[in-house]
C-alpha cells in the first residue's frame, strides 16, 4: 500500500517557467513533509520541508503548499533553471509512535529546457 502518491512521473518545463509537483498522503498521523532533490549518482538532499501547522513555506525559488484537509502538498519551483533538472521526491514521516523513517513518493524526473 503506497502511502504517498506523487505526480507527475516526469515533467518538462521551459527555462523561466514554474515547475509544479504534487503529492497526496493517506496517513493523517504524518507531521513532517520534506522534499528531496537528487542528482544522478548522488544521494537525495533535503530541499525544503513543512509541518502541517502552516499552509505554505517559501525558501528562495522553492515553495511548498500544504492542504491538510485534502491531505495534499505540492512543490513549486519558480523561475525554473537548467540546474534544477533532477529527480524530486516528496516524503512524509511522523515523530510519534509506530514505524520510523521517511515514506517516499516514487519521484518526479524534472527536465528544464534552456
Amino acid at each position, binding site marked *: 500500500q503506497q502511502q504517498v502518491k506523487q505526480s507527475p512521473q516526469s515533467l518538462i518545463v521551459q527555462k523561466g517557467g514554474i515547475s509544479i509537483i504534487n503529492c497526496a498522503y493517506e496517513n493523517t498521523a504524518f*507531521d513532517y513533509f520534506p522534499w528531496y532533490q537528487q542528482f544522478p549518482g548522488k*544521494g537525495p538532499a533535503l530541499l525544503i520541508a513543512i509541518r502541517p501547522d502552516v499552509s505554505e513555506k517559501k525558501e528562495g525559488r522553492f515553495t511548498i503548499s500544504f492542504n491538510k484537509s485534502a491531505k495534499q502538498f505540492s512543490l513549486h519551483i519558480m523561475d525554473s533553471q537548467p540546474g534544477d533538472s533532477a529527480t524530486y521526491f516528496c516524503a512524509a*514521516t511522523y*515523530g510519534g509512535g509506530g514505524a520510523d523513517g521517511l515514506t517516499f513518493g*516514487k519521484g518526479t524526473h524534472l527536465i528544464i529546457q534552456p
Partner: protein
Amino acid sequence: DAGITQSPRYKITETGRQVTLMCHQTWSHSYMFWYRQDLGHGLRLIYYSAAADITDKGEVPDGYVVSRSKTENFPLTLESATRSQTSVYFCASSEQRGTEAFFGQGTRLTVV
C-alpha cells in the same frame, strides 16, 4: 570529513554470496536508516535503528540483516544475495525521529 559515508560505492557479487554494505556517520545521530532505490519504486525503507543495539524492520526487510554495535556504524548484510537485490542502497541518519534525514552517496550493488 563530517557527514555520512558509504562503502563501497560500487559492488558486483554473485548469487548466493554474502555481502556487507558499510555506513558510517560522524554526527552522532541517534537514528540511522537503510533504503533501497529502484526505478518505479522510489526509495523504500529496509531497516532502521533508533540507537545502538536497537534495530527494526522497515517496508522491505526480507533477505537483509543489520547490526548497530556503535552509534556511528550501521552495516547492512545480504546473507545470500539474489538478483532481485540488485539496487542502489542508501544509508541515512537523523538526529531525532520525524525530522530531516541526511543521506549518503549510495552503493550501487549488482548481483549476477
